[in-house]
């Protein structure tokens, strides 16, 4: 992008030093971000929205004893920054002490992870348009219409506090997604990564196009329990709910998690293994969290046994543990942010072949938690839902609503795909489940 102004390590950390120097607090924490996002959106085979943004955000927390005030500004001039420090200090003084405040983390050595790819950083509006053109050409070959978005982002995150934490990271992000529509079907595919060169628009487009071609003439199949083969996009959706609902140490402490009192028990299928790893380049690596604490790999479920939880600084300190680098989501406690699910041995074809009468799901849409302790989730299927009969895909079907517990899904996995793929921040394989509860059906 033209005129982009990343601050760079030195400037970012200098700014943090300055804010800490100005702060009258007993403790001070500064989180600084810069964000340069560009996104080209297309619909019906043409570009209809095309945007760019350049923004900074500085949040300073000023702490007197256990009284905490926080102020955020997006202006980097000294006057605005001073005003933010004064605002934070003024509101800190207005409140009673927060007895749950456990202080700020001390500095620790940070892992060296490269998250910044210059080719992504320099990807231009012209480059995005060329990629979109490639997608559109693939759609047109079959008389389909492509919609979607191609985005790139360059960002900086710097965290510092008055106990000496100084963390800086620059990162890039690129993503392409497309829905292809034609006749009475749709198909979807996406790709993302830190390196824009890993995104092959033609390949993404062909996957979506083939799905759309297969999705023609959908028939309405009655809702009920079916065997299902869930492709990685659908698995990632359910896994994210499972991670968020269960594996936060604060949620467990407060009895809001299904894991309360159950750590160490076998709660899942023995083939099921899940962990959080913010450093693995197969996902979206990032060296530290919003408290400046290094990311640590946490085994959450091993061979079906619930093994671990993620911690932020405060929750860890209260329990005499060490933060796992999952802090900064104030009020909500720590949450897993980079989930991985262990691979199995099956191919997608093998899962389909071993299904007598079942449904193949490409992805879910508009999922929502109906009950957090049961991890009961409802949502729709979308963009490629198929009937499997006697080991073969026989027809496209109209989209279902499901109302099903993720706990049940991951405790009854009978086959797991041998290749895990990146779905945004989550890396998962496809799975086969013997019974999945579809509770409704729609008209398309």
């Amino acid at each position: 992008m033209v005129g982009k102004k990343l601050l760079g390590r030195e400037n970012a950390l200098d700014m943090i030093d300055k804010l800490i120097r100005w702060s009258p607090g007993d403790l001070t924490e500064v989180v600084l971000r810069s964000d340069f996002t560009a996104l080209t959106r297309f619909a019906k085979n043409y570009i209809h929205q095309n945007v760019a943004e350049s923004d900074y955000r500085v949040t300073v927390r000023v702490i007197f004893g256990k009284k905490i005030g926080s102020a955020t500004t997006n202006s980097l001039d000294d006057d605005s920054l001073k005003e933010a420090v004064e605002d934070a200090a003024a509101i800190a003084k207005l409140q009673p002490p927060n007895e749950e405040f456990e202080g700020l983390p001390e500095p620790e050595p940070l892992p060296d992870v490269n998250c910044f790819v210059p080719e992504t950083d320099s990807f231009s509006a012209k480059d995005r348009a060329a990629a979109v053109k490639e997608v559109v050409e693939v759609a047109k070959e079959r008389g389909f219409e492509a919609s979607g978005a191609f985005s790139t982002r360059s960002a900086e995150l710097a965290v510092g506090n008055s106990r000496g934490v100084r963390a800086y990271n620059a990162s890039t992000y690129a993503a392409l997604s497309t829905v292809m529509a034609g006749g009475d079907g749709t198909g979807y595919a996406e790709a993302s990564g830190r390196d824009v060169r890993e995104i092959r628009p033609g390949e993404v487009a062909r996957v979506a196009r083939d799905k759309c071609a297969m999705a023609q003439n959908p028939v309405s199949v009655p809702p009920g329990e079916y065997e299902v083969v869930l492709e990685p996009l659908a698995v990632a959706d359910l896994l994210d709910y499972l991670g968020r609902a269960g594996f936060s140490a604060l949620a467990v402490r407060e009895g809001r998690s299904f894991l309360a009192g159950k750590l160490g028990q076998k709660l899942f299928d023995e083939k099921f293994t899940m962990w959080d790893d913010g450093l693995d380049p197969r996902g979206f690596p990032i060296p530290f969290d919003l408290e400046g604490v290094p990311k640590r790999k946490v085994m959450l479920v091993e061979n079906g046994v619930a093994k671990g939880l993620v911690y932020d600084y405060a929750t860890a300190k209260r329990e005499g543990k060490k933060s796992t680098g999952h802090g900064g989501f104030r009020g909500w406690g720590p949450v897993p942010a980079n989930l991985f699910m262990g691979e199995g041995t099956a191919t997608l074809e093998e899962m389909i072949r071993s299904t007598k009468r079942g449904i193949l799901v490409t992805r879910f849409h508009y999922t929502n938690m109906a009950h957090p302790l049961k991890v009961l989730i409802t949502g729709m299927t979308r963009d490629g839902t198929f009937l499997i009969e006697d080991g073969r895909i026989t027809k496209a079907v109209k989209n279902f609503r499901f109302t099903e517990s993720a706990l049940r899904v991951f405790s009854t996995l009978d086959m797991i795909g041998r290749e895990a793929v990146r779905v945004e921040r989550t890396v998962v394989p496809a799975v086969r489940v013997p019974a999945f509860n579809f509770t409704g059906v729609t008209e398309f």
Partner: protein
Amino acid sequence: MKELTRKALDVVKELGASYGDIRIVETRTQTIRTRNGNVDALSSTRSKGFGVRVLYDGAWGFSSSSTLTEDEVVRVAKEAVEIARASATVKRDKDVVLSPVKPVVSKWASAVKTDPFSVKTEDKIALLLEADRLMAGCKEVKVRIGSMACQREDKIFASTEGSYIEQTKIETGAGIEATAADRGELQRRSYPTSFGGNWATAGYEIVEQMRLLDHAERVSREAVELLSAKQCPSGVMDVIIESSQLALQIHESCGHPIELDRVLGQEASYAGTSFLTPEKLGTFQYGSEEVTITADATLPRGLGSFGFDDEGVPAQRVTIVDKGIFKNYLTSRETAHELGQVSNGAMRADGWNRIPIIRMTNISLEPGDWTLDEMIKDTKEGILVATNKSWSIDDKRLNFQFGTEIAWEIKDGSLGAMLKNPTYTGITYEFWRSCDAVAGKDEWELWGLPNCGKGEPGQLAHVGHGASPARFRRVKVGVGKW
């Protein structure tokens, strides 16, 4: 600021743009959250910046920046044209055409009785902590949350067609909630509604009117009672929906499908399209005769109210569904032209760094002439549901499913036992056609939703919905295995 807007518009005109506009937006937000007796977030946020939107060679470009200097305005204006040029390389078979709007020079400010920023922060904290204390009576209540926020947005809109509009909008919101957990069950209750409470384009007076302290003990008690309440039965029965849940029902099943950009496929890749395709306009039976729905951006206190939208189109009141018949979409200048209409003013952007897209204003179910009591008395077998817990709807907005915090049995005209985990599901138009009773003006309430997500990159809109309780016949309830 006038020099900056003029500079941006001059630059884009010189570069050959056929249309350009600039918005300069400054927002100030204060957020307070209490959790289990502590102030767990107290923050003040300021954001300012500008965005330039242009049409060049019949295609759109937009760029934005938080640095409000003349040099940066020139850079961003040039970049917007550069981006539009790239858009034009993968263009539609016809150019974007904007339906006409009269250029205006105007100022607008929302009405406020008590400026929420003038109320002492200590007093706001004291109110939330007192509500927290009142919720703390029951040991099963594991998490108590109180929240309050206010926002002031100052916005300038200027276009190459000669509009120059200054608007100031003040919003305030608050709410409390209690989450109880015991022996494998978890239940939440909130007031006045869930997910951050109620919001309005108004000052601190709306917080005072909520009387949070009068409801705190009940909220906490109901959360605990729900732990051992009867599971909502499964079956087909009549459902009476209280007004805050009905507000969300309107939002998902009427508000979104009437957005003309969705209808025309512009959101296909993300949120989806709409079952309300253009041939249905004016004839489709969306609901029963009891159902009249309006979109009104002029509604006092409505969270979706404004003076002018982000294309400089004045705020309007539009009938969406008239006695059951689908009459109008929410439109923009570009999409209205596709139907041979002019914009009805629904284009809004989430801040300086986003383009305007079609957003709900205040989409309301007009009051009928029943009362909630009469409806209950008139119902043989059914449930009364209240306060949203979960929501989901398909990408054409047909198959929906909602969960609410609480319900009560209705048997032979009277309210019975409390029910936990209520859910209900249906197909949008079948559901609205089954509406046979809507309560009157006295029970009509206006709700503000500050978190309607749409678009890529993501945008959150502040929208409003008015509703009074209503009854729907033969609805599928108690979905899934519990």
